[in-house]
């Protein structure tokens, strides 16, 4: 019996097709669950511990001027801050277009170029920014000495801005003669800015630490063919500490601020900014023998109505990477790593429970012994150094019901092996 020559080809083609299509395995038989695949992992256990052994509020940054922003605020009895920008080194010569360098004998169109965070502006009223000469031989970090220099005999200039004028790049025109006088006398030019106006106002200017340095711009000749000179802030003092000097090229001076959080209260944010450092004692049996799937720091918030109580502060937990040798919480709180990019949004004026997720820290702690890496976290504001808002929480010094606690959800490891 002979079949046509077409049939074997069809059979071969079909066999080849089936073979190729079956080369890709599809083993997932989830459709039969849970009848044929009962749960393996067991239930998640939830455990709440009084695991906090140390909680304290520490400064967030490395001192005056380390903030990424300069806060210029005039909010009546609540908050008043001023900004100092130091130009300790001014050019004495300039090079006209097509010519050689020559001494500066005139100054024209002098202005400070400021980078303003327009989203953070508060107050709809016009704001007047006054500039003062705040050069002094007083201690570099003495803000009290600086505040006294905002007086009429130190006045340089002022400029009023309506809200629409406050763009992200702000030109604040300053007295040409004041600049020229400093150049001629080879003197330091330290400018203090103060906000005034008919109403409350607050704006945030990026500082050198944020990478958007304020600058002094002026023309040394009326000839527009010659480029204007741009001078970056610089602080020559303190001579013995270049890092502090770097911070002091521009900084914020607090004249008036809400009272700080009382002792025993955990405070996050504010100005100067602060963080909370919390160290835990977690049973090794949980970290070593179980698999933590969620960890939540249970805080109780204290309402802080002092400043913008309904604004939002984004709270960010971070894991402390400082080893056991770093015993100072202030220093340890500077050596941190990210747990998550997710933040907890809270309002300073709210009260009640606030849950901070810490699961990410456990994935690190699982691989590091507590002798090497203390089980510690910090809580900071995302707008640390950018916003004066402050969150407050009860600490472990309060009654048991209000203390910070740690809730851990875990599963036991599944014995993988024989069926």
């Amino acid at each position, binding site marked *: 019996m002979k079949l046509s020559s077409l049939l074997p080809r069809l059979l071969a083609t079909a066999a080849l097709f089936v073979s190729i299509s079956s080369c890709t*395995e599809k083993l997932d*038989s989830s*459709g039969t669950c*849970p009848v044929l695949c009962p*749960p*393996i992992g067991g239930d998640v256990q939830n455990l709440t511990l009084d695991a906090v052994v140390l909680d304290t509020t520490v400064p967030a940054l490395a001192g005056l001027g380390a903030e990424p922003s300069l806060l210029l605020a005039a909010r009546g009895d609540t908050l008043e801050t001023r900004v100092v920008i130091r130009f300790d080194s001014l050019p004495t010569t300039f090079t006209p277009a097509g010519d050689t360098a020559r001494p500066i004998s005139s100054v024209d169109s002098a202005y400070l170029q400021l980078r303003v965070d327009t989203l953070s502006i508060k107050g709809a009223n016009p704001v007047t920014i006054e500039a003062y000469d705040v050069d002094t031989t007083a201690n570099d970090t003495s803000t009290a000495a600086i505040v006294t220099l905002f007086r009429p005999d130190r006045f340089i200039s002022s400029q009023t801005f309506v809200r629409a004028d406050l763009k992200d790049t702000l030109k604040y025109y300053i007295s040409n003669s004041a600049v020229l006088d400093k150049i001629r006398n080879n003197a330091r030019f330290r400018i203090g800015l103060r906000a005034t106006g008919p109403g409350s106002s607050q704006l945030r200017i990026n500082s050198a630490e944020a990478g958007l340095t304020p600058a002094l711009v002026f023309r040394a000749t009326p000839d527009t063919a010659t480029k204007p000179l741009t001078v970056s802030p610089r602080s020559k003092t303190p001579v013995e500490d270049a890092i502090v000097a770097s911070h002091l090229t521009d900084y914020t001076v607090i004249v008036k601020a809400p009272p700080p959080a009382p002792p025993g209260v955990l405070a996050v944010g504010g100005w100067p900014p602060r963080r909370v450092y919390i160290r835990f004692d977690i049973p090794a049996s949980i970290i070593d023998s179980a698999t933590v*799937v969620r960890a939540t720091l249970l805080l109780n918030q204290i309402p802080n109505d002092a400043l913008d109580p309904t604004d939002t502060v984004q709270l960010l937990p971070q894991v402390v990477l400082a080893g056991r040798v770093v015993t100072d919480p202030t220093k340890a709180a500077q050596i941190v790593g990210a747990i998550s990019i*997710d933040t907890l949004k809270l309002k300073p004026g709210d009260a009640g429970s606030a849950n901070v997720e810490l*699961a990410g820290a456990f994935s690190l702690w699982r691989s590091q012994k507590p002798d090497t890496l203390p089980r510690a976290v910090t809580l900071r504001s995302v707008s640390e150094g950018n916003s004066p808002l402050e969150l407050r929480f009860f600490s472990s010094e309060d009654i048991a019901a209000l203390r910070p606690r740690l809730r851990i959800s875990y599963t036991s490891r599944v014995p993988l092996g024989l069926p």
Partner: protein
Amino acid sequence: MRQSHLAVIVLSTVVLAARGQAQGALSLQGLGYPTGQLSARAEGTGGGAADFDALSLVTPASIAGVGSAALFFQYSPEFRRVTTASGTARTTTARFPLVAGVLPMGQTWTLGLSSSTFLDRSHETSLSREQIVGDTATDTVLVTERNRILGAINDVRLALAWSRTPVFRIGVGAHVFTGSNRILFQQLFPDSAKFLSTSQTGRISYAGFAGSLGIEYHPSRAIGFALSGRKGGDLRAQSGDTAIGSARLPDHYSASVVFEGITGVSISARAAHDAWSSLSSLSSSGIQAFDGWDTGIGLEAGGPRILQRIITVRAGARFRTLPFGLNGQKVSETSFAAGLGLPLTRERAALDFGLQRASRSAGSDIKERGFILSFGLRVSP
């Protein structure tokens, strides 16, 4: 307080250890599915011809009938559908259950080295269920448990057979059972900002030994008989350097008859018994293994001529009990098979194709159907 935490964790671990593993199919209970160690040709006859087939690994005597040196390789994908009250699953499992080399040495002796899949445990399941993770009032989340096991226990056999005439053949085999299961278990949570998904991996390796003996007797051209047996030794399971269990490899006995009294037609029947229950101790959750019969009957006949070659056609039926039960009930498998044998390149190569439709049940409303295709390629160098 710490002691109480530890107690909770230890208790949880003990409870979990007693849980069954997710398998996802009737045929994948316990240590897995026994592929049968049959060649595509033997599968096409419902297993009836297995004890007379040199390329099936159920008896060492049969290799004496190989004729010329041969290499054999088989690919057998299974398309499975499992229906339960909760839903249906369709899977594709690609198996390479058999590779063998047979070498005649002189007129009477034949040596064979082969490897076949003994128990295939490859499967994957995902189960989603609600869990309270955190606050009991508000934090109910959907956790997905993903369980994936890949691997099998394989039977590597070195066989030696003797046959002076086609009337009588005898063979012995030394078996090494080896293989591993790679296990991945994950608990996946929906929000990585809040939860840590977990992942565990494990590997179990198996090692065991067995010996087999087979005889084949053809008192006439019309009829033949075969008997074979495999005596199991210890099978040990290890995870890393730790022994996690041991059992006896199941003893296996079979008897077959073939009738070739009709020209061009071969009718064969086989009955085999496997003492699978000896594997019961190789379980952490008490999954029960049952001794079972494997019976089959089949027919092989010269068929149509395609491209100047005579095609061999095969058909058969098979009934057997699978080793591992479900909820204390035996899982039985009934399959009907058909196949083709196609000689290639002047008898120096042959392609066998088989198709089985298997139905499995365990006395419940769970239905399992599988189509197993088998492609076997024999080459005589």
